[in-house]
């Protein structure tokens, strides 16, 4: 009897829920987030403020970025009376969610986008609005023409660059001082000397610099571009011959041979691989690896993970050759308006507010050093810019003289494990290649293939 009652109760419950779903299904078929069904649950009713609005925006990031956006949006609402609903989360899985939303015309009105999304999801210009059409609302003159060009895909300015980023050296000067070196390394010879000093004064486990597979690829590109004075890829064609690439691989190997960087075998044994970045290793935390070659925007993470962060210093870019400075910067992220946005003018106002206007002073350097001149000025005036990141960013931007090729970071090349860069530099460091020419051939073929794939679309 008890069981019969239980079953009947369950049945009634399910019918009730079904009925509820039926009515909400029909009423919310158009706009999914409207609060037509708000009375069914107290939690939604109490908070309709952030649930629905005139505009919507999405971004990914960590806690501090979430807070910065929320404060900036609150200020925007106060200034304009436009309500903005939000959607935010961490990076992992974010692109899956975003791509699904973009393909089904479900995406938020304003989106924080990765630079490669522009060509990847909107290569034909169908997903994002041409911001040139809103130049009366958004002050485009605050942005350098080169970065606007980088965001122009399919003839449309599909996003505005929030910030630019590039790679630079960071040093843990506490360890350098222990090794008897007072100055940050500024030349290749300084690096070799540091390797020698670390080995003799501190021991075999200490290295002035640690480079993973992808770091090696980036540093080699800096080296080659500086030595040969030509971009890595231009017009979707690799500009370097196998012989030239081999000299780059030899250069990386010379760092390993001179005790400047640990071999990848040593690093893997220390637990550093594709899943665990250098900042999570005991060797970095305790200062045994005293340098990295990282994005300027990652400075705080590496600084924060040090047991004793007092020696963390922004280094200088090193000019390896005499033909050019070498290296590149890239648009780290942008803000875009989706074609499905109902009120594009309000969205343009929001972007202008966040990048050029008062919003920039609240956002500070949360999304990197602002690319907009007025945005950077406002952020600096408000004291919301991380000095360390600003110093690194300024040095990178003043140094690099090449453009990044969009295919450079494609997953086929960059993935760890399995990408071409990983296989070539990992294989060479592990001694799986007979000579650098063989490794260079693999790299050449891999990059050429990726470029051909990209050209096919």
């Amino acid at each position, binding site marked *: 009897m008890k*069981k019969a009652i239980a079953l009947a109760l*369950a049945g009634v419950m*399910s019918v009730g*829920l*079904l009925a509820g*779903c039926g009515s*909400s*299904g029909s009423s*919310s*078929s*158009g*706009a*999914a*987030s409207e609060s037509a069904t*708000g009375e*069914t*649950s107290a*939690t*939604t009713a109490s*908070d309709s403020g*952030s*649930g629905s609005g005139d505009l919507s925006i*999405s971004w*990914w*990031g*960590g*806690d*501090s*970025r*979430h807070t910065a956006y*929320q404060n900036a949006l609150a200020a925007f609402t106060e200034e304009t009376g436009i309500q903005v*609903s939000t*959607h*935010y*989360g*961490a*990076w*992992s*899985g974010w692109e*899956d*969610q975003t791509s*699904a*939303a973009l*393909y*089904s015309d*479900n995406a938020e009105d304003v989106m924080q986008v990765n630079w490669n999304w522009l060509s990847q999801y909107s290569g034909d210009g169908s997903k994002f609005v041409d911001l040139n059409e809103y130049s009366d609302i958004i002050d485009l003159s605050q942005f350098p023409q080169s970065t606007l060009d980088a965001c122009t895909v399919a003839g449309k300015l599909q996003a505005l660059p929030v910030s630019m980023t590039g790679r630079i050296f960071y040093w843990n000067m506490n360890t350098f001082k222990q090794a008897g070196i007072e100055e940050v390394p500024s030349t290749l010879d300084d690096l070799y000397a540091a390797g020698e000093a670390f080995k003799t004064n501190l021991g075999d486990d200490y290295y002035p610099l640690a480079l993973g597979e992808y770091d090696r690829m980036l540093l080699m590109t800096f080296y080659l571009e500086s030595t040969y004075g030509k971009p890595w890829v231009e017009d979707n064609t690799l500009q370097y011959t196998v012989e030239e690439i081999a000299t780059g691989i030899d250069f990386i190997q010379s760092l390993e041979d001179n005790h400047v960087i640990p071999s990848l075998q040593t690093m893997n044994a220390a637990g550093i691989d594709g899943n665990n*970045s250098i*900042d*999570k*290793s*005991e060797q970095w*935390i*305790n200062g045994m690896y005293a340098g990295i070659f990282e994005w300027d*925007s*990652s400075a*705080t*993470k590496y600084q*924060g*993970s040090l*047991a004793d962060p007092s020696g963390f210093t922004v280094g200088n870019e090193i000019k390896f050759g005499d033909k050019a400075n070498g290296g590149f910067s890239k648009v780290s992220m942008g803000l875009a308006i989706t074609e499905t946005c109902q009120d594009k003018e309000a969205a343009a106002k929001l972007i202008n507010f966040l990048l050029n206007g008062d919003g920039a002073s609240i956002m500070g350097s949360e999304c990197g050093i602002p690319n907009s001149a007025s945005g950077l000025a406002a952020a600096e005036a408000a004291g919301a810019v991380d000095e360390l990141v600003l110093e690194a960013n300024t040095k990178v931007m003043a140094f690099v003289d090449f453009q990044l090729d969009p295919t450079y970071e494609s997953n086929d090349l960059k993935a760890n494990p399995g990408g071409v860069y990983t296989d070539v530099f990992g294989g060479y460091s592990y001694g799986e290649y007979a000579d650098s020419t063989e490794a260079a051939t693999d790299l050449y073929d891999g990059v050429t293939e990726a470029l051909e794939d990209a050209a096919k679309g």
Partner: protein
Amino acid sequence: MTPMKLETRHKIARFFQYFVLIVVGFVMIYPLLWMIGATFKSNAEIFTSIGFIPTNPTLDGYIAAVTQNYGGDINIWRAFLNTYSYVIPKVIFTVISSVIAAYGFSRFKFKGRDVLFSIMISTLFLPQVVLNVPQYLMYNTFGWINSPLYLPLWVPTLFATETYFVYQLVQFMRSIPHDLDEAASIDGCGPVKILYKIICPMLSPSLVACGLFQFMWSCNDFMGPLLYVTTPTKYPMSIFVKLSMDGDTGFNWNRILALSLISIIPQLIVFFAAQDAFIDGIAAGSVKG
């Protein structure tokens, strides 16, 4: 040398049995212990020490875990509420719909049954990743994306979509003798009554297992809520835990671990509570059988 007494030998054997069990058990449970210890550590200590007792214990992780509220959008308690508001219907409907589907497959002969059964089994091998995009598009046409009632997350379970459970229940039902059904039908039971009077009680351990698995999987599901819940106030626990895990800027692991630990407490309670029912069921069956 006099031969050892039998009792002494037993004691020694018992000692070694327990010794091995305790050592292996400790190795198995150590990661969980380490996680508990790590909730009291700083980042630097988490990555540099394997011991689970923190040298400079801090409560910051727990304080941050329960106070972080993202500008009033979402906090840990609301995330709990959100999670269970779709997990509980999901579990109930999964069990009910799977039992009905399994009953059909195991007790009734109808045209195309074997073909349908093999089609159903074949979906067992279909990875969820393949389904994500078509499902997303389908729910989008229904207008269910970001539904305040989490419709895309639990409505499918009304239709016995969890093949694994249906398959498991079919196997269990096959082991229940048909004689019981026949005896019941002689006593005047219809097919529905046979299901809930005769079959369900005998299936109860397996039903508990289905419910348990579904409960854990649903609580841990990250991709589903990520795709279908886009309003921060409606985020469930699995999303909330990850909200601050940003690879670019770094974050305090002790907070994430504290949050994870708090978030699995209800699951642990449910698991231990259900474990009794689970074992009772098995024991009862064995005596009768």
